[in-house]
């Protein structure tokens, strides 16, 4: 079955081409082609994962793509190990149900076929990243996702704000991608190969100097910062909510933003070897999870709440990786994919019903939309970390790892204890804040009375079916982390032996549960009666203003970077391009023409003049040759 793994990214790629070329002429706008492709991939992925669970070995195949000399070659290959299998299942599952959901959600859309084509291409890109056995191929898939993200955020490009959000997302992630590319070249240069396995071997055998490892790992992490929306490049993710809701669910919650986490996990031995980079990841992740959770508290747009929640949860995964919780991070990625996709799709169903993103125009929807309510509740409680839903188990494992590394004395060698302590404390605070904003979101959406216009109604079966399936996933996904043959065993590699089943620390379980319940209680107390006339935080003007302006980061980028680039750099480069570069090109053409206009009078048509010139030339040559021979 592992040998068929290449079909999993290849089929959506074919589907994309088919949809683009003849999609509009197919029944159903060609949406079925993409769904079929992903469904086949889903079956294959599940079969591979069950093979791995059953103890199958990792499968690796690589082929030379193009030799470029100097001992280098461009390889083309895939690694089907536990990590890849888990990711494949996540990607294909979410993609499949999001596409089924989109059948109803996008019905009647002007660019229906294009939308599904882009979803197919995106799925293929993510699967290429997941299966890639070398960094170059990974970059290839990585960039496919970047362009798909751009296309899908700007799906409703008639609205200028959406187009701007698309550009912002593209350019912001690009900043990180530059670092990623530089990191790839550092490792390729040091290990004389793009192959991930060779790089990891080179690092663990000490063949690559520790300075190089630290530099390369830091640069690679830049890519992860951009893609996974970590501070300070997280600003694009909330704006990316301009895209249709299924896109938010697929790309900006469950899969693409997880690519950064996956990258760190894939290259984990490298990051371990450069301890200081893990510390930086821990610090940045702590900052990110805290500031994003605070921002989620004050958003009115339900999708923005979820977007900031995504940023915060991604930071949780990064934090887990930074304290040595390799399997905890991937476990949280796995569970988060289910409940966050569920939350986004349920939010889409709500938005569909009330025709607004704003929670100030919602309320009282529990009675009119019972199925959406129940599924949303499952997702929300999973996010808040209530047992036994998915988020509880993975979050608990992360906090356990942070506790052990920071206070337990069984610290992870590569991470400093202080960083682990910071991660643990911010993780706890963030868990509390998460519960508060989850409660706020639940009460503002479903509680009290309806504040909007019109008569909301429950979504149709086509949208509810994926919700129910994902709700089951969000409820049960946490159990893959329990028992002897758990997710940490599946994703172990030769370099990263399994840490064994999750150690359940009873004290921590009680503590996290109490914190989550306290947060839910606080949120309930504050927002039970619907939206207050003034938000509670407005009484702290400074805090309120800072949160409203998103820590002034957007202003900083706008004033500092965009203005400098667009105001001074862009005209300067434009002038240089127009005058100097184009000047040289045009000058060459114009000069030749002017010269020719003068020189053409030499062509007099008088054959005897030509003959005379010929003789002169011959005589001149004869003189030169005899001189040369004579001397």
């Amino acid at each position, binding site marked *: 079955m592992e040998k068929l793994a290449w079909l999993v990214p290849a089929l959506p790629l074919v589907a994309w081409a088919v949809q683009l070329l003849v999609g509009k002429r197919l029944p159903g706008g060609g949406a079925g082609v993409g769904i079929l492709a992903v469904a086949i991939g889903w079956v294959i992925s599940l079969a591979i994962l069950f093979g791995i669970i059953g103890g199958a070995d990792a499968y690796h195949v690589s082929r030379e793509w193009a030799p470029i000399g100097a001992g280098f070659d461009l390889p083309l290959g895939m690694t089907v190990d536990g990590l890849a299998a888990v990711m494949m299942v996540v990607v294909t599952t979410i993609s499949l149900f999001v596409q089924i959901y989109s059948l109803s959600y996008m019905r009647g859309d002007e660019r229906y076929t294009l939308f599904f084509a882009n979803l197919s291409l995106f799925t293929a890109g993510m699967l290429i990243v997941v299966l890639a056995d070398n960094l170059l191929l990974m970059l290839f898939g990585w960039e496919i996702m970047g362009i798909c993200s751009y296309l899908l955020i700007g799906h409703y490009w008639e609205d200028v704000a959406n187009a701007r959000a698309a550009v912002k997302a593209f350019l912001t992630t690009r900043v990180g991608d530059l670092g990623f590319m530089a990191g790839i070249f550092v490792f390729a240069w040091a290990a004389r190969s793009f192959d991930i396995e060779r790089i990891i071997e080179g690092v663990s055998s000490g063949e690559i100097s520790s300075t190089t490892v630290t530099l390369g790992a830091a640069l690679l992490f830049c890519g992860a910062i951009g893609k996974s929306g970590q501070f300070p490049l997280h600003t694009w993710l909330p704006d990316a909510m301009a895209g249709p809701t299924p896109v938010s669910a697929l790309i900006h919650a469950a899969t693409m933003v997880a690519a950064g986490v996956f990258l760190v996990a894939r290259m984990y031995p490298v990051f371990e070897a450069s301890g200081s980079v893990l510390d930086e990841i821990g610090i940045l992740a702590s900052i990110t999870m805290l500031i994003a959770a605070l921002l989620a508290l004050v958003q009115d747009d339900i999708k923005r709440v979820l977007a900031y929640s995504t940023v915060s949860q991604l930071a949780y995964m990064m934090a887990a990786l930074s304290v040595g919780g390799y399997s905890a991070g991937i476990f949280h990625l796995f569970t988060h994919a289910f409940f966050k996709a569920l939350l986004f799709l349920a939010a889409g169903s709500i938005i569909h019903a009330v025709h607004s993103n704003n929670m100030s125009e919602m309320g009282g929807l529990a009675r009119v939309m019972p199925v959406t309510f129940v599924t949303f509740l499952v997702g929300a409680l999973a996010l808040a970390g209530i047992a036994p839903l998915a988020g509880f188990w993975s979050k608990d494992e992360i906090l356990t790892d942070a506790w052990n590394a920071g206070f337990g004395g069984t610290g992870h060698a590569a991470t400093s204890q202080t960083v682990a302590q910071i991660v643990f404390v911010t993780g706890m605070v963030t868990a509390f804040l998460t519960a508060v904003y989850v409660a706020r979101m639940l009460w503002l959406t479903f509680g009290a009375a309806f504040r909007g216009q019109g008569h909301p109604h429950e979504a149709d079966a086509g949208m509810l079916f994926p919700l129910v399936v994902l709700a089951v996933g969000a409820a049960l996904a946490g159990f893959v982390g329990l028992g002897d043959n758990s997710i940490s065993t599946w994703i172990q590699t030769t370099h990263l032996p399994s840490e064994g089943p999750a150690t359940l620390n009873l004290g921590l379980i009680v503590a996290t549960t109490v914190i989550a319940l306290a947060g839910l209680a606080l949120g309930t107390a504050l927002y039970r009666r619907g939206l207050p006339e003034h938000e509670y935080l407005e009484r702290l003007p400074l805090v309120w203003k800072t949160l409203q302006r998103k820590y002034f980061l957007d202003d900083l980028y706008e004033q500092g970077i965009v203005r400098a680039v667009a105001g001074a750099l862009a005209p300067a480069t434009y002038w240089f391009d127009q005058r100097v570069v184009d000047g040289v090109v045009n000058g060459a053409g114009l000069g030749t023409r002017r010269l020719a206009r003068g020189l*053409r*009078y030499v*062509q*007099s*048509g*008088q*054959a*005897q003049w030509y*003959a*005379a010139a010929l*003789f002169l030339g011959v005589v001149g040559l004869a003189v030169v040759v005899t001189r040369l021979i004579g001397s």
Partner: protein
Amino acid sequence: MPLMYPLVFAAFLFSAGVYGVLARRNAVMVLMSIELMLNAVNVNLVAFNAYLRDQLVSGQVFALFVIAVAAAEVGIGLAIVLLIFRNRETVNIDEVDLLRW
């Protein structure tokens, strides 16, 4: 006979040919001048053949080739001149300047 004589003779002959090609107006005269130049070369070839007889005998052969090529060239040249005369009623090559800018 010293080598000098035929060489000087050939040089004069060649110079006369060059003068004819560059200075004469009549296309037929120009063609004849070209013949002079070719024959100057032939004289050189034969002279050197005689001078280097012990080592080489290819000079005569070369001269024969030149004569054959010259005959072909005159055939084509005269045909062109004839056609020009038929079309333009002149063989003055100053007036035949179709290849002008």
